[in-house]
Structure formats: C-alpha cells, structure tokens
C-alpha cells in the first residue's frame, strides 16, 4: 500500500488500517423509482475516485449514501464513523448568512476540532485557495467558484478519512477549478479517500478510479485504462456524419464524428470500406459508447414491444 499515512493526532489510526470505504450491491428506492440499482463502489485512502453521469444518473444518491446521509434499501455500506466523513452536497454546503470565517468555525465545532487547530488549518487552506481576502465576507456574497472552494475547505478541515464531494466543480471557471483540484489533491495527500461527482469526463480522467452511472446503474467502473479497454467493439472517426443505420451509432466530438461499431458489426473482409478511420478511444468515448449502447438496446426493446402489440 503506497498510500501516505493520515494526518497525525486526529484519531484516525484505527481507520487507517481500512483498505476501502464504499458500497456493495447498494440499492436505493424512492417509491416506485429505483434511484440506485445494485451499485458497488470502493474509495481507497490516499486516492481520488470519480463518479460520473448526467442529470438523474444516481450520482447524488450514491454520494449521499457514502456520506451516511441516506440509508440504502438493500446492499451494504462500509463507512468510517460519521465524524470521520467530510461531505459537500451539490450546490450548497455553506451557510449564506455566515461569513467565511464563521462558516469554518461552525464546521470545526461540529466536527469537534480544537479551535486553535481549526484556525491554523483554515488560514493555510484559505490562503492557498485565494480566499484570504474574503474571510469577513458572507458566504452568500461570494462568487460561485469562491463558494465552492469554501465548501470544499469546510468539508476537509477535520482531515476526514472519507471526503465526499458532490459536483464541486460544476459551473466553476478553470482558475477556481485549479484551486479546487489542489484542495482535492491535498485532502488525498493527507490520507483521505476522496470521492467526487462530475458530469465532465476530462475531469474524471484525473481520478485513479472512475464509476460511470446511468439511470441508477453502473455503466462502467475501474481505472480509466480499464474502462477504455473494456469498451465493446471499435471506434471510427469521420469528417462527415455517416448515412443509414450507422447514423444512430454516431456522435459529434471535436468538430468530427465518432462512429461506434459494436462487436460483430459489418466490416467483413471484402465489403466496401466504411467511411472514417479507426481511432483509439479515450475515457469520454468509452463512457459515451456505454450510454449509447444502453440507449440503442432500449430503443430496440421498445420497437419489438410495439411490433408485438401490432400483430395481436
């Protein structure tokens, strides 16, 4: 295990022996809706993991389970004691009517952190994140990027064993995002298992492991390299949008068209050459293929159902 040892003196010695935090086959049901469907996810101390997926994919539900804020309907969670978890919920996580300093002092009290330790850590992190000049400002008056930085600092101040960040960088400009990434790396360097949710794959590619969710289910998981290697079929890139059936398997990226050929797709020897040239997929391609494959399978099931209904 190459993970650095957790920060000293915060009572995490026992937790440091734990090799992962996370869920096993966890499901969460809201009424009729299965928001999370048998999801297994592991966050490792000293590592950054990403949970990706669009709106409604189940990211927030999974992160709330990891934060201990939501009980699973079935399956298992393995979490540190609640005082050893840090959590930034999506779009909030700070108190708008408190100043930056008051927000951090309040969090420190909630996490039973000695005031002197809290002051020292706060000062260092605020300075590094470019928030030193804003300590007396109300959190509600900060820009989006500044507020997110404050939220991340507040959630990592007690040097948790598990740090759960729900979309810390959404809508944040690249400069503030770099500061946020520094804070995330700092938390991992202190020994935390860091989990962050994002809708951007280029950001997820920076994580050691990635879980892609869609409609509450795991689409793909592993290191970025493993996810890429596990992509079924092959990929082509073309300047023009393909015609015919392949149109449904094509999407736009970087001003060109990516075309996915599932395993067993034409391309037989001797057949006319399909347009485009082969391209090696990256994480974004692999996850897009997973979403597309699920969508195409869904459309096929629907049309079979419709045909069945018509013949009756």
């Amino acid at each position: 295990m190459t993970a650095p040892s957790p920060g000293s003196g915060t009572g995490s010695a026992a937790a440091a022996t734990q090799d992962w935090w996370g869920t096993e086959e966890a499901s969460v049901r809201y009424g009729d809706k299965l928001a999370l469907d048998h999801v297994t996810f592991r966050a490792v101390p000293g590592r950054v993991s990403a949970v990706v997926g669009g709106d409604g994919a189940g990211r927030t539900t999974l992160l709330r389970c990891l934060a201990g804020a939501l009980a699973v309907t079935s399956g298992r969670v393995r979490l540190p004691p609640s005082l050893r978890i840090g959590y930034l919920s999506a779009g909030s996580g700070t108190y708008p009517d408190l100043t930056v300093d008051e927000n951090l002092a309040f969090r420190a009290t909630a996490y039973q952190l000695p005031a002197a330790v809290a002051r020292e850590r706060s000062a260092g992190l605020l300075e590094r994140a470019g928030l030193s000049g804003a300590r007396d400002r109300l959190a509600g008056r900060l820009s989006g990027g500044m507020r997110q930085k404050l939220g991340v600092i507040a959630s990592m101040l007690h040097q948790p064993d598990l740090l759960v960040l729900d979309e810390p960088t959404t809508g944040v400009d690249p400069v503030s995002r770099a500061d946020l990434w520094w804070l995330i790396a700092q938390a991992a360097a202190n020994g935390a298992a860091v989990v962050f949710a994002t809708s951007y794959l280029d950001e997820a590619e920076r994580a050691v492991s990635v879980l892609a969710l869609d409609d509450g289910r795991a689409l793909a998981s592993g290191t970025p390299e493993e996810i890429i290697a596990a992509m079924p079929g092959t990929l082509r890139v073309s300047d023009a949008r393909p015609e015919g059936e392949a149109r449904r398997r094509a999407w736009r990226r970087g001003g060109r068209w990516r075309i996915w050929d599932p395993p067993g797709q034409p391309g037989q020897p001797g057949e006319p050459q399909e347009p485009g040239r082969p391209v090696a997929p990256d994480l974004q391609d692999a996850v897009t293929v997973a979403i597309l494959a699920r969508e195409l399978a869904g459309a096929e099931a629907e049309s079979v159902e419709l045909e069945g209904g018509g013949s009756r």
Partner: protein
Amino acid sequence: MTETLAQCVGVSRRFGNFTAVDGVDLQLGRGEVVGLLGANGAGKTTLIRMLLGLLATSGGQVLLFGEPPSRRTRQRIGYVPQTLGLYDDLTPAENLAFSEAVFGAQSGEGGRQVMASALPESLRPYRRTVVGSLPLGVQRSAAFAQALAHQPDLLILDEPTSGVDPLARARLWETVAIAAAAGTGVLVTTHYMDEAGECDRLMVMADGRVVAGGTAGQIIGDARVSVVETGSWAAAFAALEAAGLPATLVGRTLRVPGADPADVRRALGAVEASVTAAPATLEERFFELTLTSSRTRESA
C-alpha cells in the same frame, strides 16, 4: 470575405473605476463558430451583454450586421443564457410559442400546431411536460430549439452544456454545427476546454482583454509542462508546494505547468521521481495566460 455578422472595435466597458472589458476587437462571420474562454470576471458576460444591446459601451464600437445594436438587430440574434431563459411552468412547445409571439416570427396558418411541429424530434416525447420537470439535458435542448426558432443570423450561447452527460453534450453541439452549416454565426462561452475542438476559432479573455486567439494548437504553441512520475506522489506534491511550484494531480502523476524540469527536479529534493517535459494541454496554457495577466495587472 464572408459577411461580418458581429464586429467589436476597441470595445471597452467601465463600471465606476473597474474596467470589465478593455479594448476588445472581435469579428464573427457567417457560419463561423467562435469560442470565448475566460475565468469568471474575465469580461465574457459583459461583452455578450454589449453584443445583445443590453449594455452600452464606454468606448469603441459594436456593430451587428453593420449597424449599432438595437431592437431590430436583437431580432436577428438567438441567445441561450446560462440560466436557459425558459418558463418552468410551460411545456417546451408553449415556451416556443411564447417566444415566437415575442419575436414576431410568422407562425403560419395553423398557429400553435405549426409551432409544435417545429419542435425537434428529440423533444416530441416531452411535448406535454412542463420544462421544470424535464431532465437538464432536455431542458437545454428546449432552450436551443427556442433560440433557433426564429432562424437567427447570430447565435450566442453562454455555457451551453454545463451539467449534461457526454452523449447529450454531443447532441447539443450537433445542433450548433447544423445551425453554423446553414450560415448562422455562433459565439459560445465555455469553461470546458474539451469543447474547444468544436469551435473554428478561440478567443481567450483575461481581465477584460483578449490575451490569445486562434485554434487550440495556435494558442498552446510550444508551451510545456513538467511531468513527475513517482511512487510517493503525496511527498512530491508537498515538496513542490513548499518550493512555490503548485502541481496538479492526474491519477498518480503530477503535472507542473510553466516550470522547467530541472527546477522541478531540484524542488523535489530527496523524493524519488522521474521528471520529464510534455506539451501543455489547452487548459494548462489557459491557466498560464490567465495567471500572467493577473500578475501583470497587479504589478501595474
């Protein structure tokens, strides 16, 4: 030379002592997609508001279709704000009908029927659902459809793809490409460098000024970063930080923008690591440009 749709010549805007936009030149032609990159406060939104005619300039000149911004030029622009500008309590079709009535577009004899059929295929299943109950990706498609309904000559998009999955994002860019192919000029802001490839040309703004322009390759130029591969990244991270060389973490590798490998090696001290140079990414180059601009401004 293609027709110039939007032109800024030395455009500035001051708010009291603060200069939000400082001598910006911009030219946007028919069918062109120009990406506007910049940190918060770089002046992108102020520039857009001047193009929309919502804000007067303090200096320089804005011309739209060869004339100063007015209610008439506004009719030829489609605009998707960050907040999407849709009414949550109306369906996509009702939003569209309302917008067409406001823009005074000719709706044909069938009235609402015609407008509803103008909804893109992908939105038909959601025709009867109010916008507030739709997934974000669908809301964004609806906002695009609305901005394009009056066949604008110029389309302005403010962070159009924030928060949607990669396939939904690809489809939004497809809509942009179709409009551009039909001759619409597009000005789009984004925080995501991955989307720069969808643009014909980029403009990087920092502190109100344009600090770089061209394709991603032209902007990156020969900028390089130092790449640190090590078994103990946390120790390397701390050593670099202490030496004033902030590193970014990618997997278990550290990247140090704008730093010479020899300096990085020295800063690492006793930490075992291999240090190599690699071409910078657009995001890393962008970061360097923004930082240089703020330092220049501070020392001025």
